[in-house]
């Protein structure tokens, strides 16, 4: 009805009503013989004629109190009740509207606005040339609450629709890796046909929601899996921490990096969630967009990896292990192979075996798979042996021992020792053999000792360090023996080549390695004090890379790169950051290591000459068109077959690549690990060196 028509009708009606009312009142009070209204009792005390109307009116309105004390009191009680209620109400309204006003305004705003979070697409991971290593792809995901698992009919229907066994559907729903309260992923990559069916039959699939997500996609399969790492749903712990520190980066169900580069560069890759704020009605339906914050997509990270080389090293490492099997080392089932860019310190390729498929882990790890990956039979495929694997460096370590000896004058560049195959400087109970026994190498200079890996030469080096140390240690009072650590000249010298501390590579989980000294031994043998002494044997073992010393393949490669380059640079895999517009935002700058080795260039040249001789002697390197320098190693590990090492860099005049390879229980280094290094260099320089066959283990070290 029109408002004006309404107003006219109402006005007319009111006018008529007032006239009618006036007429009725006139009828009531017109002068009649009978005073039906009882007006006059109130007038009795008024003298007529009335002089002033007011007096009359006041008289008329004068109330006569009720008879009976009970009735009177009850009216007062009623009045008091009314007063009390309205008093309480006023106080209540004061509290609500004045005192708690701000709180309720906040609640009202919360009521009426809804924030919808817009996810940011995670950045890609590329190699140094821009080849995609990890990217995203869309995936349709079915999610639901945990309680759905109890709906047998629904589980059955989902099982039929998705073609997954009922038990698997149920297990997916019950899987609580994403947190107890979060929505569970029932199935990923659901075909459009099934999605359409669910949409057409919403009542059959109540509680199941369809979500468009992006999942990590690995175009190269498990290429460089250990370096790249994997992603998984954000843990409840992280969310709780966020809650505590009030920095809201993640929401339940978000994907975060769990290992490798995905973890290391999380802050660059994840981007920032956007937010849309809507005015909503009580049903939650959005009415109006009030505020919008666009999501900031994650930037792409370029690694120093060269995808082609990485593909080769992954293959070479695997085939080298197979080759070791063919040579009878059937226990060989693990290893690492890496190539460092000597000039910059970047990792060009790094392979670790056994490996895993990161896409299996992308949506959260099932308990079954986790059990498999952590099983001893699988030989721990999740471990990145390049940075976390700890091995005795064996003869490859002799280069550093030489440098230490030269630096501290224990040997000179032309010092010679005679090797008869047996060394008993401290009596026969401390007697040690060279690997050529019983004949020995004869007279050995430094270069030849490195080339032929003469242990006895380095026993003498060790002795040269041990004697003065022992004199210091011996002279110290019993309770001040710890101060002898200040005189660990050899250990300190070795550490300056990057051992006994993480190299500082930008990957999580790097191991420190170990250069033992007597303090360490005291700690390690705290329960058997008779063994907790630093013996000449400890020193000699360490000098040939055996005993209690441990290095990671990365540390060793980094050490050789340091020799090649002459100074220490932190190894890294970060190359640059490219934003969505394709602009390079950040580029890596080489950082010198915290500790730099002190050496004389003449001494270094002597050691390099020794390393060059090794390559010359190993004739299989002949096809490589550049001059290389390298060293083999064969580590003896208790209760295990020997671990094979080989490390080489080149070209010697202008060093560019440093390659290190370790094969667990692969036998002699110059038989097995050497082929890994050879084929890596062959791949770098594009030389065909045939199929990978391990050499015969001659016992040469």
């Amino acid at each position, binding site marked *: 009805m029109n408002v004006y028509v309404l107003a006219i009708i109402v006005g007319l009606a009111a006018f008529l009503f007032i006239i009618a009312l006036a007429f*009725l009142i006139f009828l009531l009070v017109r002068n009649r013989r009978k005073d039906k209204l009882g007006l006059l009792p109130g007038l009795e005390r008024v003298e007529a004629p009335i002089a002033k109307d007011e007096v*009359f009116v006041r008289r008329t309105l004068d109330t006569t109190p009720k008879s*009976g004390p009970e009735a009177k009191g009850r009216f007062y009680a009623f009045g008091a009740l009314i007063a009390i209620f309205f008093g309480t109400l006023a106080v209540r309204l004061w509290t609500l509207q004045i005192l708690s006003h701000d709180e309720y305004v906040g609640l009202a705003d919360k009521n009426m606005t809804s924030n919808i979070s817009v996810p940011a697409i995670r950045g890609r991971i590329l190699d140094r040339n821009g080849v995609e290593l990890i990217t995203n792809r869309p995936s349709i995901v079915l999610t639901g609450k945990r309680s759905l698992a109890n709906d047998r009919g629904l589980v059955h229907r989902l099982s039929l629709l998705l073609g997954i066994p009922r038990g698997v559907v149920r297990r997916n729903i019950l899987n609580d890796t994403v947190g107890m309260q979060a929505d569970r992923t029932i199935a990923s990559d659901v075909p459009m046909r099934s999605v359409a069916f669910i949409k057409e039959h919403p009542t059959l699939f109540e509680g199941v929601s369809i979500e468009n997500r992006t999942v990590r996609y690995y175009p190269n399969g498990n290429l460089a899996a250990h370096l790249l790492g994997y992603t998984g749903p954000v843990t409840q712990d992280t969310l709780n921490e966020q809650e505590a520190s009030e920095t809201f980066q993640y929401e339940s169900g978000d994907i975060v990096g769990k290992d490798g580069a995905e973890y290391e560069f999380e802050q660059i890759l994840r981007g920032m969630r956007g937010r849309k704020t809507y005015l909503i009605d009580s049903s939650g339906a959005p009415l109006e967009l009030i505020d919008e914050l666009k999501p900031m997509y994650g930037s792409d990270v370029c690694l120093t990896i060269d995808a082609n080389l990485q593909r080769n090293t992954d293959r070479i490492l695997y085939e080298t292990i197979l080759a070791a099997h063919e040579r009878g080392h059937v226990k060989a089932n693990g290893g690492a192979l890496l190539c460092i860019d000597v000039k910059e310190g970047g990792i060009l390729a790094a392979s670790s075996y056994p490996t895993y498929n990161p896409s299996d882990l992308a949506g959260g790890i099932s308990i079954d798979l986790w059990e498999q990956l952590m099983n001893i039979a699988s030989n721990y495929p999740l471990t990145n042996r390049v940075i976390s694997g700890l091995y005795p460096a064996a003869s490859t370590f002799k280069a550093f021992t030489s440098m230490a000896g030269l630096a501290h004058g224990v040997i000179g560049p032309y010092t010679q020792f005679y090797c008869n195959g047996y060394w008993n400087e401290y009596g026969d109970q401390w007697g040690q053999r060279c690997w050529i026994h019983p004949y020995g190498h004869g007279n050995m200079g430094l270069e030849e000792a490195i080339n032929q890996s003469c242990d006895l030469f380095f026993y003498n080096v060790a002795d040269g360090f041990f004697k003065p140390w022992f004199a210091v240690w011996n002279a110290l009072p019993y309770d001040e023996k710890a101060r002898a650590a200040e005189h660990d000249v050899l250990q300190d010298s070795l550490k300056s080549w990057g051992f006994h501390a993480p190299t500082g590579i930008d990957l999580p989980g790097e191991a420190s390695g170990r250069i033992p000294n007597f303090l360490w031994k005291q700690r390690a043998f705290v329960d058997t004090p008779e063994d907790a002494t630093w013996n000449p044997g400890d020193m000699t073992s360490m000098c040939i890379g055996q005993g209690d010393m441990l290095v990671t393949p990365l540390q060793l490669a980094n050490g050789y790169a340091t020799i090649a380059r002459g100074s220490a640079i932190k190894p890294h895999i970060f190359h640059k950051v490219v934003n969505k517009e394709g602009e390079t935002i950040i580029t890596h700058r080489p950082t010198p290591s915290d500790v730099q080795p002190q050496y004389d260039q003449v001494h270094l040249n002597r050691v390099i000459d020794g390393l060059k001789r090794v390559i010359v002697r190993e004739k299989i390197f002949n096809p490589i068109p550049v001059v290389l320098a390298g060293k083999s190693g064969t580590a003896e590990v208790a209760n295990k077959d020997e671990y094979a090492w080989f490390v080489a860099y080149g070209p010697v005049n202008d060093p560019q690549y440093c390659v290190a390879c370790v094969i667990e229980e692969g036998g002699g280094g110059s038989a097995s690990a050497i082929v890994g290094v050879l084929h890596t260099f062959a791949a770098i320089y594009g030389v065909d060196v045939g199929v990978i066959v391990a050499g015969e283990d001659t016992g040469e070290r």
Partner: protein
Amino acid sequence: MAITPKLQQHDSVSRDLKHIPLHTRVLAVINIPLLAVTALLACYGLLIVSSAIIGHSDYTLSRQLTGILIGLMAFAVLWWFDYRRFARFALPLLIIPVILVLLPLVPGIGVEVNGAYNWVNIFGLQFQPAELAKPLLILAAAALVSQYRGKLNSGKDYLKVLGMLLIPVVCIMAQPDLGTGLVFFVIAVVALFTGGANRKWLIITAIVIIAALVLLIVVDGYLDSYFERDVLIKDYQKNRILVFLDNDIDPTGVSYHLTQAKIAIGSGGLLGKGYGNAMQSGLGFLPETPTDFIFCVLAEEFGFVGSMALIALFILQFFIILRIAFTAKNTFGSIIAASILGMWFFHVLENIGMTCGLMPITGIPLPFVSYGSSFMVTNFIVLGLLCSIWTRRNAGDRFGHIGTRMTE
């Protein structure tokens, strides 16, 4: 003075009014404060309702205006009519409300809304008969109680009156309509209280009611578990009590209404968000805003000042009515006025009280403010009764057995 002897026999106060000026006589019969306050209240209510019904297609302002117009006519008639004539018809006045209350249960004319039969539809005219039963019940209660001339001491008589007045209360529970049932009950209690029922009986009644309620709650628990379903007291009723005891027990569930009502009131602040800006009701967070939660709309739009203005109007109105009850020189009129006051007071107490968490939630309308034509007509009917009582406040007992408290 020409007063005939015949008239003198019938009317002791019959005199000639000729010497009193007409306008003075007119002013003497009109209770100007009552009419003024009520008019303000009705206008204020209309203002709020026209804002609250925006966005509700079921509610129209013209229906509310129709209610007011019909109410005004009824008001005029009842003002003019001598209320004392009702005193003779206690029994019919009690039976008609019972029939009215049971009317919605008759198939064909009863209309179901939200699972309750509160409405009837007769020849296209839709209304709530229970609302119209309220003034009749007030008259019936006053007629029954006033027979005892302000002294209801006999236990037998007390039980008789109480029993008769409880019949409509029991009948309304069949609809079911707890809110209106409580209003009926309050009317009966106020009539007995101001009608001079012995204090002893009143106290005993109170104790029996409390004991019965406790027993009911205990028995209900057993019955629910025995029958394995919700019998006697419904779960939603229990929840309302729980919410009343702890306002924040479940803000998205059972205490949702109270939470939203408090947000609406609290966010109003001192001066409110302005006319037509009640977001809480406009966006649908509060249900039933034109009727049960109308106060929230007012508090949100006009803030503390607006709320206090409404409360001030009610306080004024109630004390004017109290004065009418006090002034009326016969018990019947006095009890009617008191019962009307009791009814309105309970409506205001419950309606505003529940939105602030002072009372458990039960939907009954706010007099002169809430949307609803049936209740609006009722309000004007009882207003007519009040005016009739005021106009005849000095009139003696001319209608048979009515007791009077006049001393002379």
